[in-house]
Structures are given as structure tokens and as C-alpha cells.
């Protein structure tokens, strides 16, 4: 049924479609695309109403558009908590979390007889006690006949892209690492995470192999997950899968640098610098900056990372390359458009033309392709404006320089020269023009994490920061808050270091293995970039060359990437030996040393999960070790950008 190559998103979409078809097995005939569906309203595709709660709305929203819902016969979609009126005769599909409040509302609906029959779908397992309570409520009001079916859907994760998912747990890092969290709360939180991972595994339909470091949250979650899978009857009865996915569970504390660091790739930059939530980007554009009242318009775009041709091809590329590709494609599309327009003589494409000449067919094809071409142009222009907005931020905050310094610190360039490192950091921090307060705090934190700087030095840098931001802090309350938060974050780091909870800087990052064309390609792109900038007078490109060329440097592998790579390739002497190996089909732990002597199946699919908050930068970095034979999906308890992560860390300080 599910091939190893089916992505998480496709599997989730399929599950949702089946749910919308009332979970009937007969309609398991999968329709390849929306067009082969029977028309809505016919026997195989009845009309229905979809009712969800807020959490499930965020699950459905990225994978199905309203148009697609309509095709599946959903005439109305409503929020569970809203006021709902009676629409008799129409079946209702409920899709929500199995909480007491939700169940009470559903029971009320059945009692009031709002809809014809209710098909209940819970996003995760419905506890036995809750089911009993619900049954009591329903039987008391005598509306048992209104309940048509009850299903547990195990879809408790939000899939934003084909290989990116999140469990949408709020404030996860602060909760898991805070001192105020009790044992019971931790237990509860870990169970929820395990359920989320179980949903992912269940949707994919293959029993995985679980690997995690010893001790701490990952081991807890891994063992829970192991138990859940082995106890679940249907999943185990599944045919033995040829390739089993590898689930790697990691802790955020193993690598604190990645979420804080400045990034250089397109998608990660969008997430970092602009308002980016659930594939929607918002930013302000100033129109007519020279007039008396420059109008600021709020622009909002929905990005589709899988269907958008330009975005899916370039989202992992470094920023200057993305700009360049955008410019090149836009030129090509405009040229083609001009060509077509000139062929048709400009005004009327349907005017009489000589039908005998072979140009007639070409002309017809050209005219037909014109709308598609214009569509593509519109898409490219959306990206041009997004690139422009990112460029403005990058230029204003001097992001490339921060990026360069942080990469240098992280890769250990200053390992032997700590004073020089401190000097550089001080110059950056002290300079009031460079970057926002947050950028400086991030730099300091990276500095603290990557070098063995003494506490005194950190204090020195901290005071320098306070002095530099004094003026700004006095004027702007938000700046003050960010500043205080940042200082708290730094003190938290100090605490961690004193407790030796941060691994030594040596394992943090590794230099990218020098690929044969690596050096050449980056300098080649650089020179071509310069050439293009001088020949064209595009603002964007010109700005890019002087500010952003430093971003073309090598991209280093982050900790998570290294771990996943070692596990997938089963390299001896690395995490492969130290990590736990749990197999739900086998009782008890598996001894990896013994396993190493046997030949193991190659890993075709890996799912990396980070407890405590993931980021787009890590996601992009992981894709570097993905290739044709190996797919890597990435998920986390929540997807954060640097400022969100900083505020959580600040809470702990």
C-alpha cells in the first residue's frame, strides 16, 4: 500500500481523504488526483460537513485547500467551539482532540439533533474513561442513534512540507528544561510526544527502528514509543516491510547552536527575518518612499514549498544564488512572453492566420501556454518581492557579517586564538549600527557555546552589550525587554556550562568534507555574480554582491546532520555504537555491537526528531545528507525561529 518513497505529507493527505469518505473500506480505491473523483453528492462522495477544533484545523490547513475540500464533498467547515446552527439531513464529520470539553460539546450536538449522523474521528487515542463518560452522556439524552462511528485517526502532527512536520507543542523547550516542571508533568509531556511520533509512524505504515542517545528525555520517549508500537495490534500485523525507516530521537540540548545561529539559505532566512508561520509570509512594503506620506502596505503570501517550482528548487540554496536564479528565470519568462505576444501580432491571438503554414499549430500551442507562462511569471514575481524584503532586512542588520563570524567561531577557526575571538566579538557588540540587539545577543551566545571562554570574559562582553544598547533601550521599551531577556539567556548558558551540560565545542560542528568541486564552485558563483552585477544594473543583485557575498562560503554540517549520517551509514566508532537500538519487534534492548557483525539493511528512510524545538536551518542542513537512495524527514515538538527560541531560553535564565 504505502511505498517507501511516499512522503509523510502524501500519507497524511491520503489518511484525511479516507476519513472524509467516512472511513469506508470500499472507498479505499485511491483517486490519483482530484479529477477522477465522482462528483460530490453521488453515492461514493456524499455531501458532508466537517467540524474541527483549533488544533485539528492547523493540521488540515496546510495539506488541503478549501477547493480540495469542496471536491471531496465538504460543503461547510466549522469550528467546534463556534456557534453552530442546525442543518438537518447532512452527515457531520467531527475531527478533534479527545478531550473532555470536546466530547461534551459533541454530546450536546447529538442531543440537540443539529445534524443527521455524527462520524467521530479523534486525532489520537481516545482513553477508555473518556469513552465511558461520553457513552453515558449520549445514552442519557437518548441520542445514541446519532453516533454513526468512532475512529482514532492517529494524525497528531502538522505536516508543513513533504518532509517537515511539527507537533505544535507550545513553549516546549522552556517546559522540558525548566526547573518548575514536576515529574508528572514531564511524564505527561513525554507521553504526548510519543503519541505524536506514533502517529507519524502509523501514518507511514512501517515499523521503524528507534535510536536515541542514552539518558534523558530522548530515552524516555523512545521507550514509550517502542512500547506503543509493540502493543498496538494492527500495526504489528502489517506485512513485514522490506525497508524499515529509522527514527532518530535527539534532544535540543545536544546542540544549542543551530537554532541561535544566523543562517544563509533562502527558506531559513525567510523564517528568521520575516514573519513566517505555517507557510505564510508577511512583511511590510513601503510604497513611494519619497512622497510626503510613504504608504506602508502589508503584504501577505502563501508559499507552497512543494508545488511552487521556484521555491522548491531554491529554498535550500544560499541567498545570493537564490537571487540570481530568480533574476535569470524572470528574464527567461519575460522573453518567452514577449516572443509569444509578438507572434500573435500583439492584440488578438484569434485573428485570422494562415492555417496551412505549420505556424498554426505552434501558434495554438503558444497561445495555450500563455496563461501558464503568466502564472509562472506571477509566482516568480512573488518571490522577487519576498527576496527584496529579505534583502532589506539583511542589509539593515548586517546579517552576513554575523553569519561569517559565527561560522568561524563554530568551526573552531579561533580555537587557538581566544583573545582574537573575543576582540572580534567585542567590536561587533560595541558597534551600535551593526545589527539589532537580538543579533548581538545571538552572537554572544554562539561565542559562549563554541569557545571555552571564561565567565569573566562573558561578563565583559555582556556589559559591552548593555553599554552599546543603552541609548536605544532608553527610547524603546521593546528593545529593553529584548535586552533583558537576552541577558537572562546568557546567564542560563553560564549555568549550563557550570553544570557541564553542554557538550564540548569540538563535537558541535564539523567542516564540510571538501567536495572536489566545492571550492571552485563557490568562487565560480562569486565571480559570475560580480560579472552579472556589473553588467546588469539590478538593484537587488548589486546590493547582494557587496553585502552578501560572504554567505557563499561553505555550509557546515550541524550536530544533528552528523549524527543522522553516522547512523544511516552505520559508521563504526561513532554514535552508531553509543546510541540505544530499540526494535519494536524484538523484546528488550538490542546489543548494537553484536548487530554490527551482521549485515544490516541499508537505511532508505530516516526520520530525525528533536525534542525541545527545531528550526528551518537544521532542516535544510539535514537535507544535505539526503540523496536519491535516502530520504530524510525532519520533525520537532515545535518549529522555532531564533527570536522565539531566545525568548524561551530567557524564561529559564
Amino acid at each position: 500500500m504505502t511505498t517507501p518513497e511516499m512522503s509523510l505529507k502524501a500519507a497524511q493527505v491520503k489518511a484525511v481523504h479516507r476519513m472524509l469518505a467516512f472511513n469506508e473500506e470500499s472507498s479505499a480505491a485511491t483517486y490519483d488526483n482530484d479529477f477522477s473523483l465522482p462528483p460530490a453528492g453521488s453515492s461514493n462522495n456524499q455531501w458532508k460537513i466537517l467540524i474541527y477544533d483549533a488544533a485539528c484545523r492547523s493540521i488540515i490547513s496546510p495539506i488541503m485547500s478549501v477547493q480540495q475540500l469542496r471536491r471531496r464533498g465538504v460543503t461547510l467547515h466549522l469550528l467546534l467551539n463556534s456557534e453552530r446552527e442546525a442543518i438537518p439531513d447532512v452527515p457531520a464529520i467531527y475531527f478533534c482532540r479527545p478531550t473532555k470539553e470536546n466530547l461534551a460539546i459533541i454530546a450536546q450536538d447529538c442531543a440537540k439533533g443539529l445534524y443527521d449522523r455524527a462520524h467521530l474521528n479523534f486525532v489520537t487515542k481516545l482513553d477508555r474513561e473518556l469513552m465511558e463518560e461520553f457513552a453515558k452522556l449520549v445514552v442519557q439524552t437518548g441520542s445514541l442513534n446519532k453516533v454513526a462511528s468512532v475512529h482514532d485517526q492517529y494524525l497528531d502532527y502538522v505536516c508543513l512540507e513533504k518532509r517537515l512536520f511539527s507537533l505544535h507543542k507550545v513553549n516546549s523547550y522552556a517546559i522540558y528544561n525548566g526547573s518548575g516542571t514536576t515529574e508528572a508533568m514531564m511524564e505527561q509531556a513525554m507521553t504526548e510526544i510519543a503519541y505524536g511520533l506514533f502517529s507519524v509512524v502509523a501514518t507511514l505504515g512501517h515499523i521503524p527502528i528507534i535510536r536515541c542517545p542514552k539518558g534523558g528525555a530522548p530515552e524516555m520517549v523512545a521507550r514509550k514509543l517502542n512500547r506503543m508500537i509493540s502493543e498496538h495490534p494492527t500495526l504489528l500485523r502489517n506485512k513485514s516491510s522490506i525497508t524499515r525507516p529509522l527514527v532518530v530521537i535527539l534532544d535540543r540540548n545536544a546542540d544549542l547552536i543551530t537554532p541561535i545561529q544566523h543562517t544563509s539559505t533562502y527558506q531559513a532566512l525567510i523564517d528568521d527575518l520575516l514573519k513566517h508561520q505555517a507557510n505564510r509570509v508577511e512583511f511590510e512594503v513601503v510604497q513611494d518612499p519619497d512622497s510626503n506620506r510613504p504608504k506602508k502596505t502589508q503584504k501577505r503570501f502563501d508559499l507552497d514549498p512543494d508545488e511552487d517550482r521556484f521555491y522548491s528548487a531554491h529554498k535550500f540554496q544560499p541567498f545570493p544564488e537564490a537571487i540570481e536564479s530568480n533574476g535569470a528565470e524572470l528574464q527567461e519568462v519575460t522573453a518567452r512572453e514577449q516572443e509569444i505576444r509578438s507572434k500573435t501580432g500583439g492584440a488578438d491571438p484569434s485573428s485570422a492566420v494562415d492555417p496551412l503554414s505549420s505556424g498554426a499549430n505552434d501558434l495554438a500551442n503558444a497561445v495555450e501556454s500563455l496563461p501558464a507562462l503568466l502564472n509562472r511569471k506571477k509566482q516568480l514575481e512573488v518571490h522577487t518581492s519576498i527576496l527584496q524584503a529579505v534583502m532589506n532586512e539583511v542589509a539593515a542588520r548586517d546579517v552576513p557579517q554575523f553569519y561569517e563570524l559565527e561560522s568561524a567561531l563554530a568551526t573552531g577557526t579561533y580555537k587557538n586564538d581566544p583573545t582574537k575571538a573575543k576582540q572580534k566579538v567585542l567590536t561587533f557588540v560595541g558597534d551600535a549600527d551593526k545589527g539589532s540587539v537580538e543579533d548581538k545577543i545571538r552572537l554572544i551566545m554562539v561565542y559562549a557555546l563554541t569557545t571555552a571562554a571564561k565567565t569573566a570574559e562573558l561578563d565583559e562582553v555582556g556589559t559591552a552589550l548593555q553599554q552599546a544598547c543603552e541609548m536605544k533601550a532608553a527610547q524603546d521599551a521593546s528593545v529593553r525587554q529584548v535586552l533583558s531577556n537576552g541577558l537572562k539567556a546568557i546567564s542560563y548558558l553560564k549555568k549550563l556550562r557550570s553544570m557541564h551540560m553542554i557538550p564540548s565545542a569540538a563535537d558541535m560542528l564539523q567542516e564540510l568534507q571538501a567536495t572536489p568541486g566545492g571550492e571552485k564552485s563557490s568562487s565560480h558563483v562569486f565571480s559570475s555574480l560580480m560579472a552579472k552585477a556589473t553588467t546588469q544594473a539590478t538593484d537587488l543583485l548589486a546590493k547582494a554582491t557587496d553585502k552578501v557575498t560572504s554567505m557563499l562560503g561553505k555550509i557546515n554540517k550541524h550536530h544533528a546532520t552528523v549524527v543522522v549520517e553516522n547512523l544511516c551509514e552505520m559508521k563504526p566508532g561513532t554514535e552508531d555504537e553509543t546510541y540505544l537500538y530499540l526494535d519494536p519487534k524484538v523484546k528488550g534492548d538490542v546489543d548494537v555491537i553484536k548487530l554490527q557483525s551482521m549485515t544490516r539493511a541499508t537505511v532508505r528512510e530516516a526520520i530525525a526528531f528533536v525534542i525541545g524545538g527545531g528550526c528551518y536551518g537544521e532542516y535544510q542542513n539535514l537535507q544535505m545528507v539526503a540523496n536519491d537512495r535516502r530520504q530524510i524527514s525532519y520533525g520537532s515538538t515545535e518549529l522555532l525561529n531564533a527570536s522565539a527560541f531566545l525568548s524561551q531560553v530567557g524564561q529559564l535564565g
Partner: protein
Amino acid sequence: MSSNRTHEFMALAQSLPAGSPPPTSANGKKGDSDAYQELRNFHTTAAGISRDIAGTSALLSELSNLVRQGFAQPQDQARMNQLVMHIKSQIEGLNGRLDQASNTMQKQRRKVGQQAGEEAANMMDGLKSTFAEAASDFKKVLQERTDNMKEETDFQKQVYDYNNADDDDPIPNMSSLYAPPVFGGANSNGFPALDLTSSLMSPGDNTSSLPRPHGISSSYSGSDIRQRRPLEYNNSYGSQNSLGGSLYSTAQPPLTPLDIQRMEEERGLQQQLIPDQDYLQQRADAMSQVESNIVELGTIFNKLAVMVQEHREMVQRVDDNVQDANTNINMSMEVLTDTLMSLRTNRMLAFRVFSVLVLFIIAFIIFFA
């Protein structure tokens, strides 16, 4: 992969003591009120329409399979004609029913609750868009069929008959008589046009192409026929088109048409021509039928296109409503602040607005006093 807990739930519910008799009778009364009854009727009608659209689609797919086969046997031809008529009547019927249902829905919408009304409206939209798709598929299939038939006719002409002026008459006459179909059929227009232009353009080819033995086709086999036809055309109907006539007469030996006639007589093709004539007549009839269908349905297609455009879904994302409302409010706030700013800075404007307000107050006082 989901787990079905229905049995578990039902078992649990059965085991519990039965509750009070269902108070649904009270709700039932509300549900049976007139408006809701009408809504129920509307749902049933809509379901009926949807089933019929599905039926039409099935017929349509059968038709398109037949058409795609290319050269078809006579019984297939008959079947195709039958299907076309059937589908056409169904589409017209459905169109009427959809209009009716839409009107009833609009009337009912005001009586029932807002959500129920929205649900009905969305259902209507869904039906209309499926219907529009079915209709446009039908249009495409008809076009394909017309193309196929033209190709076939050319081929038949070239193989069986290259000197029969009578056969030529139905087709060029019909095509020139009909107004061009609504959606711009360059094909049906081009048919007679092709003849004249090709002949006018390349008179030089005539000499080489005319005395061609039966059955051998050149790369311009189609144009051969067309070139020769206007020749016959001009000769038999007098030299109305003097230009063409003169071109022909100068470009070739004057006896060639007679030669051909002689050749044909020798081969006794005359006997074969009569059944072919019937056959071609049939084809001509069928094609004219198809074209008339297209013209009649043209109005429906246009209306549908307009309809579907109107009801394009405004909101694309499931969680969009809040955002839109927010944007609207922000925009209106902006306009108001702008006005305020301009009022503050611009004394004349403030004076004018104030004077208009005062005028209105005075007018109202006088009116109501």
C-alpha cells in the same frame, strides 16, 4: 491508518442503562418546520441532479472512447450519434433543473439559518462547477469528432472519388451557410477557405498533381482534391471566379478534366460512386448535426463560464476568515486615520466638511420641525 472503535463504543453504550426517552421530539418539531422541510427537499433534488450528472459523465466517457478510436464502423457511427443526442438532451435538462434549484435555494436561504444557507449555496456551487466541467468535456469531444470526421471525409474523397462535383456540394454549402460556432471554430471556417487559398497560392502544383492514378496519394493529397475541386467548381458554375478560372486555364492543358472523366468511366467507378455518395451524404448530415448542436449549446457554455467565474472560492485557506476580517478592519482604520490627518492639516477641508454637516442638521431640523 486508523483504528475503528465503533464496536467498542456501541458495546459500551448498550451496557449502560437506557436514558430518558429522547427529547428529540421537541427538536424534531423544530426540524420539521417549513423552511427546514424545504431544505430537505432541496437536498434531495440536489442529490438527484448530482446522480444525473454522474450518469451524463459516464455516457460522455463512453462517447469519448468511441471518438478516440478514429475511423469508426457504421454501427459505431450510429451509436455515437445516439449518444450525442442523448447527452445533449440531458445537458439541456440538467441546465434547466440547475437553474430552478438555484432559484429555490436563493429564496429559501433567507428563511433558514445562516450556516444552513451557506451550506446550500456551497452545494449549489459544487453542482454547477461539476456540470460546467461535464459540459466543457462534451464540447471538446464534439470538436474532436468534427475533426475526425473531416479527416475521414478527406481520406474517403481521395480514395473513392475525385471527380464528383455533386458530393462536394453538401459540404462546402453547409459550412458556408452556417454562422461560425460561438467558440471560434477555425476548423469549420477553414474548410472552404482552405480550398480557395490553397489553389490560389500554388497553381504551379496543378500540372503535376492532376493526372494521378487512382489511389496513389502524394504528400499534398488533401490539397490535391481541394485544388481540383475549385477547378470543377469554377468550370461547372461558370467562371464566376475569373481569377481562379484564368489561373487554371493558363496553367495546364485544357483537356485534363475530360481525361479524368474518361479514365473513371473506363474503370467503372461510376457504379461504386452511388453507395459512396450515400455514405458521404450521411457523413455530411452528421457533421451538420454536430455543428448545430455546438451552436445551440453555445449559449449554455457561455452562461456556465460566467456562472463559475462568479462563484470562485474567495477564501483559499481553511483558517483564512479571521485574517481577512483583520485586514479589512486595519484598512478601514487606515482610511479613517488618513482622513483625520488630512482634516487636521487642511483647514479648507475641515471647513467644508463642517459646513456640509451643519447644512444637513439645519435641513433636518427644518424638515422635522
